[in-house]
Each structure stands twice: as C-alpha cells, then as structure tokens.
C-alpha cells in the first residue's frame, strides 16, 4: 500500500495533501515523514495548546460566541489580502482587533456581547467575504482555503505566529488564570476583591483575537471555534476544577488536532472541517456518556449535601 512518503507526485494528487492518492489509508506515522505534514503537525499542536488553554477561559467566561465570531470577522479582510497580495496575518489581526475593540467598547458585561449584533456581524462578514471573493476578486478556489484552512500551505511564519500565540496563552494563563476564573465565577465579587476585572477581560479578548488569527491558515476563518470552544466544552463535561479543565481541554484539543490532520490527509478534506466534525462527535459522545451516568446515579432524595 502506498504511503505518504512513497507515492509520487502525480495527476492523482489530492488538493490538500500532495503525494497522497485520495482514498488510500496513510499510516499515522507518515505524518512525521514529510516536511509538509511535520509542519502541519507542529502547527496544529501549537494551536491546540493555545486553543485548549484560552478555550477553557472562553467557556468559563461565556465568550464562546465571541471566539467564533472573531474568526469569521476576519474573513473579508483575508479575502482582500489574499487577492491583493497584502499580508493575510496583518489584515486578519486588524479585523480581529477591530472586532474585539468593538465588543469591549459595547461596554456591556462581556458575558453578553449582544447576541443579535454578533449574529448580524457573522452574516455580514460571511456574505461580504464571499461576495468579495466571487465577484470582486474572483478568488475561486482560494475561498475554501480561507474559510476552512489547509494542511499543506503552512510555512515557518505561520508556525512562528502560532508559537507566539501559544507562549502568550501559557504566560497569560499562569499570570491571569486565577483572576479569569474568579471573574468568570462572579464578576461583581471579583471587582469588590480589587481584581483588575477590566484589564483581565481586555487581555482575554485580545489573546483570543490573536490566537484566532494564528489559527486562520490551518483551520480557516469559519471553524476557528473548533479549536477554541469545542475541546474546552468537552473537557467541561468532566472537569471538577479549573486546572483539570485546562489540562483536559489542551489534551482533547491536541487529540482532535492530530486526528483531524490525519483525517484531512486521508480523506482529502481541509483540516478545519475534519477537526470540527471530530470535535462535535466527541462532544456528542461525552455528553451522552455523562448524561447516562447522571441518570443511572440514584438521586439523593431529601438530603442536603
């Protein structure tokens, strides 16, 4: 059976993984063989660290919708950048930063950044981006790469940005983890404790925005939340405290990322949807499991515990 390393580059090559005949089953070890897939593996691992850590606080702070929206908000900007040769990273960063500032400025409790406003923005960003791509720039095939990511077009600069995002996420978790948790638990009380609630919120929004941009090349604008929300949501089903949530979230993100990459190369689909589908399946299974466990447990009738 041909493997990633041995198949020749030819007319059968997949769109997402050169050197792989679509339909053949690559050995998982092949992920380590080709420089291209090694880069993709490293990229997704860094993103898993970043997404797992920040995702835990995103879920605790009720920012899941924000994390999803900030990725989508970058879409029109990266379409323009892609078509004009401008740096997609800078374009994405500007759009994400502008969106994060808007949410912050909206001045509401961050827990509720205005659902209908966010929904409107999602529709406008997607619609606008597609319109720009198809009618203005005629980007064609680039659209699905921008929306769903790619495993093969990744380079050193992408790795460097993801590395920086992962380092920032780790540092912020160490310094701000307790504060983020306290604010998520009870933001009024956190203010009374003298915690820098506003600064902590700004830092969380900013880190998520940066991390979402770092994730754009690999998982695309539409499915950023597959790494920033889904793993933490799964871990949350089991975690009894915040450290367990952080560890579980990173571990699940890493599993989803590696499996998703493998699936992407094997089935010739972009990594974003592969990770997203796996994540949704994992969440569904775990929710079912915990639901079953809870319903078989005898209710502690009449006891106050």
């Amino acid at each position: 059976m041909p493997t990633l390393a041995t198949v020749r580059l030819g007319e059968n090559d997949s769109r997402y993984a050169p050197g792989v005949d679509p339909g053949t089953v690559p050995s998982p070890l092949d992920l380590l063989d080709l420089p291209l897939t090694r880069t993709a593996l490293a990229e997704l691992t860094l993103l898993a660290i970043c997404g797992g850590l920040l995702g835990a606080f995103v879920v605790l702070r009720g920012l899941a919708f924000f994390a999803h929206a900030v990725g989508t908000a970058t879409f029109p900007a990266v379409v323009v950048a892609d078509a004009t040769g401008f740096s997609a990273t800078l374009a994405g960063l500007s759009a994400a930063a502008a969106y994060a500032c808007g949410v912050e400025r909206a001045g509401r409790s961050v827990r509720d950044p205005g659902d209908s406003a966010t929904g409107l923005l999602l529709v406008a960003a997607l619609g606008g981006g597609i319109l720009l791509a198809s009618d203005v720039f005629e980007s064609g095939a680039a659209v699905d790469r921008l929306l769903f990511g790619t495993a093969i077009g990744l380079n050193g600069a992408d790795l460097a940005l993801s590395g920086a995002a992962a380092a920032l996420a780790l540092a912020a978790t160490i310094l701000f983890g307790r504060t983020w948790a306290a604010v998520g638990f009870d933001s009024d009380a956190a203010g009374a404790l003298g915690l820098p609630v506003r600064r902590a919120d700004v830092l969380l929004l900013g880190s998520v925005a940066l991390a979402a941009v770092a994730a754009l090349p690999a998982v695309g604008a539409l499915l950023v939340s597959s790494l920033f929300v889904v793993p933490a949501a799964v871990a949350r089903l089991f975690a009894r405290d915040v450290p367990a949530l952080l560890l579980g979230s990173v571990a699940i993100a890493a599993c989803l990322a590696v499996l998703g990459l493998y699936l992407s190369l094997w089935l010739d689909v972009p990594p974003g949807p592969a990770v997203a589908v796996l994540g949704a399946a994992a969440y569904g299974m775990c929710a079912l499991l915990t639901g079953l466990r809870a319903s078989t447990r005898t209710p502690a009738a009449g006891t106050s515990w």
Partner: protein
Amino acid sequence: MTRAPAVEAHGLALGYGGEPALEGVDFEAAPGAALCVLGPNGGGKTTLFRALLGELQPLAGRVRVAGRPAYLAQTERTRLDFPVSALDVALMGSLADGRWWRPPGRSQRHAALAALGRVGLEGQASVRFGELSGGQRQRVLLARALTQDAAVLLLDEPFAGVDPASAERITAVFTELRAEGRTLLVSTHDVESARLFDLVLCLNRRQVAFGTPAQRLGREVLETTYGSDIVVLEGSGDTAVRAITVQHHEH
C-alpha cells in the same frame, strides 16, 4: 481623643442617572461597631453598599471606608455549573491582597480552610460549589469574605432565603467578627433582627433615622421607613414596638 470612624458618609446622595435613588445619608460607624442598614426593598441599601465599595460615584457628599471592605453580595450572581469546589471559592478571598497574579500559597490555603471551618463547612471543602444547598453556598461566600481578612465587612441581606441552620451559623460568625473588633454593616428588611445591632441606619430613598435601635426603632420611624409595607403589632409612640414587614420581592 476619638479614633477615626471605620465607615462614614456625609451629605451623601447616590443615583443611577435621573432622580437620586438615595439621599441625605449621614452616619459614622466606629471600628468594631455593628451597624444594621434597615429599609424596604428599593430603599437604597444595596446602592449604599455599592458606594462604599467605590463602584458608584456619589452625586453629592462623600463616603470613606477604612481599607478595602469584604463584600457579600445580595443576589447570588455566581454560576452553579462552574467547576470550583467550596475551597476554591473561599480561596478567591485571598486574591484581595493585591497580588492576584500569584498562585495560592500554603498560608492562603490554611486561611481558606479555616474560614470554611468557621462557617461550619470544613467537611465540604472539596464539594462542588453548585452541589451545595442555598444556605451552604451563602456560607461559602461568607467564607470567601472571611478569607479576605478585612477590617470592614459589608453583608447585603445575608439571611435572605437561607435555611435556619445556616442563619444560626452566620449569626454566630457575626458575633465572632464583632469580638475581633471588625466593623460590620449588615443590611436587612427585617425589623426584629435589627434590634441586635449597636447601630441602625433606616433608609427609604433617603436617610430616615440613624442611632441605636433602642432610640430609633419606634413606630414613627418604622412607618416612615416602610410606609404601607409595615404592620405594627404592639407598642405606640416612641416606645419599642413589635412589627412585621410585608415583603415585596424584587425581580
């Protein structure tokens, strides 16, 4: 020579834009005093606490609190599905020392465990906060305030919706705190519990009265404070009266 008051307000008016929600507030509480803030729902008790916390800027006048007060909020805004244990919540009080970026140390854990012990929940330290009963949760939140080790404690309707056993325990902790010389401000709309305090401050959108319960809790003051919400059961004039309030719940 008198010591500076632990809490004071002078000519204080507070509001949220529009009509002032509370005005004419003038009082002082010496260190170690226990002050009851009495008034009907909407009377301005929580508003006063928010000003004492520095969250609400006065429209007029001034407030001063010695140090950062510990605060037990009226309505529980906590999230019951949050992955924290009772001990984790009590530990949050130690964040108030201003070094929030540091992981909790051994002495902070000790303080948090001791605080849980004081509210009678040492055995529940590792129980998920959301799995505790309402009264137990209130006691854990009180433990968080105790961990803060503040000289002034602001407790907003701490007995509302709490089971009798928890209420008894909370009362016992208040007695201990007073013995330690801490200043307590406790709000309530229950007239009878107000009699146990050194001082009472009656609020109904403005300050109605301030003084000792024996001096102030007469029929006239109570009727001004509560309006039609009160039923005076016995007594008359300025002598002590028994009264119950008709509660209107906020939504």
